[in-house]
């Protein structure tokens, strides 16, 4: 793996599978009496959140703490955009505190990339969601959840439904699932696809009902309130009717098909309560898996000398 995790595109298939296998080992930790491993003892992980995201922050925090890292939470709501301290000065402060990894959530696309590549910090940078760009650990935990339910993702059909245009989850998932051999179909009204979607190496459809019966996984994306009045679609009701997953649509799915949602859900908008709470829904499991996957990422980025995973394996050196 590279030194930073900025985009799902940074991961080769070997890297991604290493993360998934490592997460599988770490997931069993939840069943042990002592839910802590010493791997990152003495290392400092900074959660640098320029946007509120309690669930992502506590997921990273739990992951780092279970690996015995010291965790500093830095909530810098209101970035340089609102005349606060600049991203650079914040970064220099963290560097001075001796951060080994910076987990960054930022409203501006590319902010983690800037942090990693502008010479401001030496630490590893993990993108915890940047603007409308990417959210690679979310994609990893989604892939991990699929992998646990379906085995290999080769040839598996994954439908990702909703606001692709503004979704960092969709971007990272499209990249990672493609790397892992899955066939991704993005489903949205034409207004919610970005220009150039045809270059993403995924299928696209405007017709949810045509896609559902073939899917092995259906991932519903959140539709944010601010889109409602921006003419992306006429009304919330029409959106739900055409692109929402309800009980009737759920009955057209194959028996093994799972339903996912990165959260937080808008029940009644993109997903109805009966679907979200059904046996097919793995939404709660996604949260559990999030901790294991983020532990795996932090472990693989931080535990080694060079931050290069898997390059060396000498046995029985006891």
């Amino acid at each position, binding site marked *: 793996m590279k030194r930073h995790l900025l985009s799902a595109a940074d991961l080769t298939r070997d890297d991604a599978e290493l993360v998934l296998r490592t997460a599988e080992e770490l997931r069993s930790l939840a069943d042990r009496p002592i839910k802590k491993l010493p791997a990152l003892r003495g290392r400092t992980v900074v959660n640098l959140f320029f946007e509120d995201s309690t669930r992502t922050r506590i997921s990273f925090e739990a992951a780092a703490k279970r690996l015995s890292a010291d965790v500093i939470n830095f909530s810098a709501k209101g970035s340089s955009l609102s005349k606060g301290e600049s991203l650079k000065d914040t970064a220099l402060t963290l560097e001075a505190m001796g951060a080994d990894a910076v987990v960054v959530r930022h*409203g501006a*696309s590319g902010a983690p990339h*800037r942090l990693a590549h*502008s010479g401001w910090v030496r630490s590893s940078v993990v993108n915890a969601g940047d603007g*409308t760009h990417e959210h690679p650990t979310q994609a990893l935990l989604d892939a991990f959840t699929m992998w646990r339910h379906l085995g290999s993702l080769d040839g598996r059909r994954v439908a990702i439904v909703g606001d692709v245009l503004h979704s960092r989850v969709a971007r990272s998932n499209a990249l990672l699932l493609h790397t892992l051999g899955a066939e991704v179909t993005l489903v949205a009204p034409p207004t919610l696809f*970005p*220009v150039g979607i045809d*270059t*993403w190496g995924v299928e696209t459809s405007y017709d949810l009902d045509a896609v559902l019966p073939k899917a092995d996984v259906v991932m519903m994306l959140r539709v944010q309130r601010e889109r409602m009045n921006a003419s992306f679609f006429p009304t919330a009701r029409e959106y739900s009717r055409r692109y929402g997953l309800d009980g009737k649509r759920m009955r057209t799915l194959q028996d093994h098909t799972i339903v996912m949602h990165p959260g937080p859900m808008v029940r009644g908008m993109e997903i109805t309560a009966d679907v979200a709470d059904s046996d097919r829904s793995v939404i709660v499991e996604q949260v559990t898996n999030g901790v294991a996957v983020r532990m795996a990422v932090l472990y693989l980025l931080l535990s080694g000398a060079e931050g290069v995973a898997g390059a060396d394996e000498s046995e029985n050196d006891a």
Partner: protein
Amino acid sequence: MTAYLIKNVAILGGAPTDLLLEDGVVASIGAGVSADGAEVIDATGLIALPGLVDLHTHLREPGREDAETVESGTQAAALGGFTAVHAMANTEPVADTAGVVEQVWRLGREAGYCDVYPVGAVTVGLAGTQLAELGAMADSAARVRVFSDDGKCVSDAVLMRRALEYVKAFDGVIAQHAQEPRLTEGAQMNEGDLSGRLGLAGWPAVAEEAIIARDCLLAAHVGSRLHVCHVSTAGSVEIVRWAKSKGWNVTAEACPHHLLLTDELAASYNPIYKVNPPLRTAADGEALRAGLADGTIDIVATDHAPHPHEDKDCEWAAAAFGMLGLETALSIVQETMVDPGLLDWAGVADRMSYAPARIGRVSDHGRPIEQGAPANVVLYDPSVRRTVEPSESASLSRNTPYAGMELPGRVVATFLRGTATVLDGKLQ
């Protein structure tokens, strides 16, 4: 006043000859010219071009003297071979009154490196609601002929129509920054394959092209002159070509960075590449070069836009739009137009001196190098290559996208009315 005898110089790349600059004019041309007491410059291998004229420069003074001043900006201009620049109106205060344009004009005269022609704002405070006192600016000592809300688009069709009509009274021109505001809300980069992947809000070509098309039709309807600033898309070139084919009085400019750079650079998320209008695709660049070669695009204008370091040393969305351009423009035109055979040196003289002076109604610049013409001359060595080093810039800012890039050519000397502003590549 020092006279300069320039020996063996290739005027517009022609046969080597000698050139005597004396008393502010081109005194004589021809092999074997001699003049007692003149400083002799051996210009073997050098090309003489008429002093370059920039129709689109941001000098930032008054208001942002941390980014650039009239003095530092005109020094950069002189080093780039320019003898005249048009200073855009988006200063603080905005150049929307006779008082502000006269101040800028006077600062230019005092600095002495380059003639400064202030551009007047079209609307009060660039707000796009009420016409500024265009006539007062035209009648001022600055004799403003070019009006622009550059940075903002005069998007109101009625206001644009009135402005186009009104400036006919003093032979002015509206230089439009073509950007449909609603289509570009929050826009960060060219809308295309890359913007979708990078998650940066897209800036569609149509937002530029729709305004250009509308303005061409308006200019035709009221019989006015329209100048289109920084054309950046292939579609815009097509529309301008169509308007010209109708015989309408439309001119257009292209910027060096749009000729050379593409939107792929945004993948670095380094806002040094953030500019308005944004860097476009390779196909757009090709269309611009072809349009500049066939005259559809009349001129090269730099859109030299200095910004202090902190406005670029941040995340992309928070960064300012714009890049330096004065000191690299001629090299980039050589790289993209001359070396590939799209334009000869006479063509460069037209696109970077004659035509911009004509559009700006500047009489003392943009004149062919001939006996009796004002001695505004640049000596250029096209044979050397240099690596762009931002710290060497005369600009107060360092936001050049060309840092570390190797470019052809070097300005050896610049003469403003016979006075050397640059000699041996150095400011005088």
